[in-house]
């Protein structure tokens, strides 16, 4: 399987290299859908230039990257294009290895459940075989590498690619079962952009499952392991933050990075939901609504943890998707990350209800984003409502996609344990509904 992966990597690198040399690179790097105030390349360059002039890059409202990014690019700024291509390749390879391992885990679990007779007798067609699962890792890597969103994000040199790499390594470490590495990468991901904090729950659930610790609130080993993992995570986070202090000898980066993410002062339009709402809000309400919007991101973790505690990797996928939809400055790079996981759930295809409409919505919205931007900003014949409408539609499409997959997953699980032909009490055919 290494050879097709290498081929895919080569194709992806060629595509990116070609785009870097073309005139589209400048055009793409200015698109607001690709570059947000948090991860635009222009701002990284500006921050490093300010540092060379002897001024702290966090002193204005331009630079919102973490000190580790300053350190990384201080030495690599001439090779920036190479760095971003390498990060994309690393993400793809990490996802490939992660999904390969995950397939083995899934298959083992399936075998165990079959032997324990947990499945209904007529669900033979729902059982997954190694044959069909063989190409899934390659498809995942391909989905990530050749996704137009990823390519655009890489050509624009948005540091979202680095965030994605860290999250991909976190996923790899979790699925391999190493609690220490998983905690370290999760701390790095949280340090980079705060929202991966919610990925703590699925990682913990997966590692508990792997250690065969039952998830009961009264179980002592559960709490022990949770405390261990939480301690590892918090210690690494604290260590990384303290280390960042020593780069510039100041704590300026905390309000600049995390204060910026949480308080959303910059209302440049992007594909998210925050900007329009806060652009038209009165000052005295903005604190309340900022809190509401931010809680919305973190809010789904606990209910999903309760519902999906047997399926932590699916939980991880849903959580990453929720982060990309509801975060304060989303870009298409974040969308590309969770879309890379879709081949893993390709067996759910028969249960997806709205997949055609949703894919059309997503494709059409992606095409309409630049059109309506041009109409609004350059031609002047539209206004911000048009762009906001497309943003809304795009996000609704994403939310419906996630909920569709959620429904399909749960439905398959239900069928597995209750049989494919469900009947009601009076014998007519029953239909599963997500309440």
């Amino acid at each position, binding site marked *: 399987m290494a050879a097709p992966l290498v081929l895919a990597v080569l194709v992806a690198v060629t595509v990116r290299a070609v785009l870097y040399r073309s005139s589209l690179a400048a055009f793409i790097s200015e698109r607001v859908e690709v570059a947000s105030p948090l991860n635009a390349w222009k701002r990284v360059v500006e921050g490093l230039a300010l*540092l*060379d*002039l*002897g001024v702290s890059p966090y002193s204005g409202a331009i630079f919102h990257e973490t000190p*580790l990014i*300053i*350190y990384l690019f*201080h030495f690599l700024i001439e090779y920036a294009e190479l760095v971003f291509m390498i990060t994309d390749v690393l993400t793809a390879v990490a996802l490939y290895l992660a999904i390969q391992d995950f397939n083995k885990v899934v298959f083992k679990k399936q075998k165990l459940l079959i032997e324990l007779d947990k499945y209904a007798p007529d669900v033979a067609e729902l059982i997954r075989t190694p044959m069909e699962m063989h190409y899934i890792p390659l498809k995942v890597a391909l989905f990530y590498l050749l996704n137009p969103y990823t390519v655009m994000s890489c050509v624009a040199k948005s540091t979202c690619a680095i965030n994605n790499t860290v999250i991909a390594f976190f996923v790899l470490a979790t699925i391999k079962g*190493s609690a*220490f*590495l998983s905690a*370290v990468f999760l701390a790095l991901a949280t340090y980079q952009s705060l929202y991966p904090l919610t990925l703590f729950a699925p990682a913990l659930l997966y590692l508990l499952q792997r250690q065969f610790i039952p998830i009961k609130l009264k179980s002592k080993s559960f709490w022990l392991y949770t405390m261990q993992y939480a301690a590892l995570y918090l210690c690494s986070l604290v*260590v990384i933050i303290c*280390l960042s202090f*020593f*780069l510039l*000898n100041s704590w300026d980066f905390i309000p600049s990075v995390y204060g910026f993410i949480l308080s959303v002062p910059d209302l440049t339009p992007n594909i998210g939901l925050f900007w329009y709402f806060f652009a038209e809000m009165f000052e005295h309400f903005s604190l309340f609504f900022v809190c509401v919007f931010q809680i919305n991101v973190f809010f789904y973790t606990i209910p999903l943890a309760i519902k999906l505690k047997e399926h932590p990797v699916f939980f991880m996928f849903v959580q990453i998707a929720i982060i990309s939809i509801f975060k304060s400055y989303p870009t298409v790079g974040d969308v590309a990350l969770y879309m890379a996981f879709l081949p893993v759930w390709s067996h759910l295809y028969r249960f997806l209800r709205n997949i055609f409409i949703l894919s059309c919505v997503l494709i059409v919205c992606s095409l309409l984003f630049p059109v309506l931007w041009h109409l609004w900003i350059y031609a002047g014949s539209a206004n911000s409502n048009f762009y906001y409408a497309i943003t809304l539609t795009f996000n609704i499409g994403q939310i419906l996609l996630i909920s569709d997959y959620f429904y399909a997953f749960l439905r398959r699980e239900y069928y597995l344990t209750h049989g494919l032909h469900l009947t009601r009490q009076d014998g007519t055919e029953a239909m599963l509904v997500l309440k």
Partner: protein
Amino acid sequence: FQDQAEQFFRSGHTNNWAVLVCTSRFWFNYRHVANTLSVYRSVKRLGIPDSHIVLMLADDMACNPRNPKPATVFSHKNMELNVYGDDVEVDYRSYEVTVENFLRVLTGRIPPSTSRSKRLLSDDRSNILIYMTGHGGNGFLKFQDSEEITNVELADAFEQMWQKRRYNELLFIIDTCQGASMYERFYSPNIMALASSQVGEDSLSHQPDLGIGVHLMDRYTFYVLEFLEEIHPASQTNMNDLFQVCPKSLCVSTPGHRTDLFQRDPRSVLITDFFGSVRKVEITTETISLDRDVAGFESKLPKDELATEPLKYAEQLPVAQIIHQKPKQKDWHPPGGFILGLWALIIMVFFKTYGIKHMKHIF
């Protein structure tokens, strides 16, 4: 005769100009107009004609409806000295005193329609006195209660004047709060500056007159005026004496001065080099034949003067040596402790994950 000729050509200027600016309006800023008018009076008395004085007064105190003694501006509470006099010629009055007009006067970038009395027609042999008074702060001076001029702008205007050869030497006097901040940024050569107070100090006013109802003058200018009243066109008093005017006991604030940009020793600079218009004309009744051979002239320079060549515009002073402009651009490097800590952590994580036994594969 040669000694007399040396005395004659001691300073390099042939004409004198004065730019006197009062930047505050309203009746309670009477003292700023009085300050400016007293310097005007001294300067005129010592010989500079109105055609060489640009007087900018932001408000009219003499004819102000609140003035109980109309057509007068007094500088002392016993009404001893009416500095308004009979022949005051105000060039920029009232709302014409703006930062833009002031800078245009200094740099000479004046629209062609401006009248001659409003222009500073100096050349490279002019000594200019610039006196400013009003309300100021650290690095700025307030004009008309609506705009400000900063010390950087002023320094750049003086540099423009130097580059356009609009002055030989310049004396800058400022009487405002924190006045020393206004001369901090000068970087052009041949500028001497005096201020009434240091950064962080306020310049105080002298005394109020209960009949007129306002403070009549500021302390620093009051004592400068007292000092200047003693000067006559033939005085040999030099700048060091002017630096001693108004010590802290009288002025409460600490006057400051700046001479590092000035070529000559302040001890050899006469007050009348700036405040007066001492014409280098001596009338003799006999004819003198000048010796063709003047080669021995330069060796007769007294020892305490700088034996440097007279400064020509073609070889300007290296500005970077005089002031520190921008610091040399150093590239930023992350501190060693950070790099060490980061890589130590990375190596620790690596070995924790993969075990120590791999070390033997590396070495």
